[in-house]
């Protein structure tokens, strides 16, 4: 099936999510603002107060400048993860939404593209609000920071697609506890969001290097603070593109298998 023929049907899957979301958008925006605001106040200002003597470890930055952009990357991961686990399982099994969609001309590929389009939209709004908060804390350096929005979306697509692929193989929600506990939370804490990888023992540094969140955090931090390293930035971007592409291929394959049984 040619790509141009997939986008219009996928847009209808997107439209369905919009129909539901427009009832709660104000709540979503409110918490989208409140969360980074609270985090930056507590960890950035409060904890940062204990770290004033350690600027060197954070590349000469105030702690809050180090933390804020990293937190945006971590938020992309968390939002994408949440949206791609329980809600997707609901549409596969509990509410059977996909079964209903598949009895129309829509196919599983349209569903995957539509859901990812939706996640992309959600993450773009999350990133935009986040940039407003970062600007309030005077963390954004130049308009280049706006490029963090597409990078956030790309990061989210990687996590979202991988988790849709995972969810499509699950028969109940128990697996999600494991994913949250052993994948998402460790990434959240150890991927260079809260502290530089140099604080970790060497083997863990290598492991953290291999994670997608590290590359997302580095790239987003570079864009927001306008400190992008031209040598490594393309590598970070390439990693994220490959991560998303592999995820999309797996999601497409696994969902088709699941729904065709």
């Amino acid at each position, binding site marked *: 099936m040619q790509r141009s023929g997939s986008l219009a049907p996928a847009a209808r899957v997107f439209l369905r999510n919009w129909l539901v979301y427009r009832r709660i958008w104000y709540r979503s925006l409110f918490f989208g603002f409140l969360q980074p605001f*609270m985090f930056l106040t507590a*960890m950035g200002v*409060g*904890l940062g107060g204990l770290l004033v003597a350690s600027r060197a470890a954070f590349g000469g930055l105030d702690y809050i400048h180090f933390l804020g952009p990293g937190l945006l990357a971590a938020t992309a991961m968390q939002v994408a993860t949440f949206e791609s686990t329980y809600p997707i399982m609901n549409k596969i099994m509990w509410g059977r939404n996909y079964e209903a969609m598949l009895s129309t001309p829509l196919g599983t590929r349209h569903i995957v593209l539509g859901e990812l389009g939706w996640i992309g939209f959600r993450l773009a709004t999350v990133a935009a609000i986040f940039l407003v908060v970062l600007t309030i804390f005077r963390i954004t350096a130049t308009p280049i920071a706006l490029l963090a929005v597409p990078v956030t979306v790309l990061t989210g697509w990687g996590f979202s697609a991988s988790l849709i692929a995972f969810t499509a193989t699950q028969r109940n929600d*128990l697996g999600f*506890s494991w994913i949250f506990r052993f994948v998402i939370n460790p990434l959240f*804490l150890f991927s260079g969001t809260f502290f530089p990888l140099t604080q970790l023992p060497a083997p863990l540094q290598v492991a953290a290097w291999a994670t997608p969140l590290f590359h997302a955090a580095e790239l987003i931090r570079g864009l927001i603070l306008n400190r992008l390293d031209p040598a490594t930035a393309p590598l970070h971007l390439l990693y994220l593109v490959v991560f998303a592409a592999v995820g999309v291929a797996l999601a497409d394959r696994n969902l088709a298998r699941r729904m065709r049984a």
Partner: protein
Amino acid sequence: MVYRHQWIVIASGVVEPVLYLFGIGLGIGGLVGGVQLADGRFVSYAAYVGPALLASAAMNGAVFETIFNVFFKLNYAKTYEGILATPMGITEIALGEMLWALMRAALYAVAMLVIMAAMGLILSPLAILALPAALFISAAFSAAGLAGTSYLRTVQDFDIPMGLIVQPMFLFSGTFFPITAYPLPIQVFMHLTPLYHAVNLIRGLMTGILGWGQAWDFAYLAAFFVVFMWLATRQMERKLIK
């Protein structure tokens, strides 16, 4: 009554406070010189943040078991309808969840104590009292969760207790840094939150501070437990009558 809780899932929940201990305690701790305690002593950041993570884990476990599980059982899980038809049902489910929350808290507390002891982060033999204290904290937050769950109508409503109460407390109750960092009015406000007292109590026990401050923490939490237990019972009875 038998609930099909997933033991392995609950047991693996131990990794959460432990991850935070390693991540924040050591990762950030390596960059923080030391933190001053209420009695003027300076301790390492990991020793400072560890007890707070234990108290927070007790709170999170309790809130999760009560708010989420009871909500889903009351509103969604069709398999429980049979049990729920009898007046015994809801109260038993509620108490059952509370019991689970206590077991969870006990498990997490023991794990944290062992790991912190191994890392040399326990500064006083009084730390052994942190175990009953964690159970007590768990009971208090379970009661609050039980009382709160009956006010929730849809899954989206969870945003409100989690986003407006639980998470702010986790961030601001002296968990990660001393509340002396705040201006005085905010410090006074923090003294009103239950997690602040829970953190203060456990931190006191694990660092060897036992005085009027801890007695006040205990009294606050006891009152908190009584009030919310009363409210929870009343709410459950109402739900039955309706």
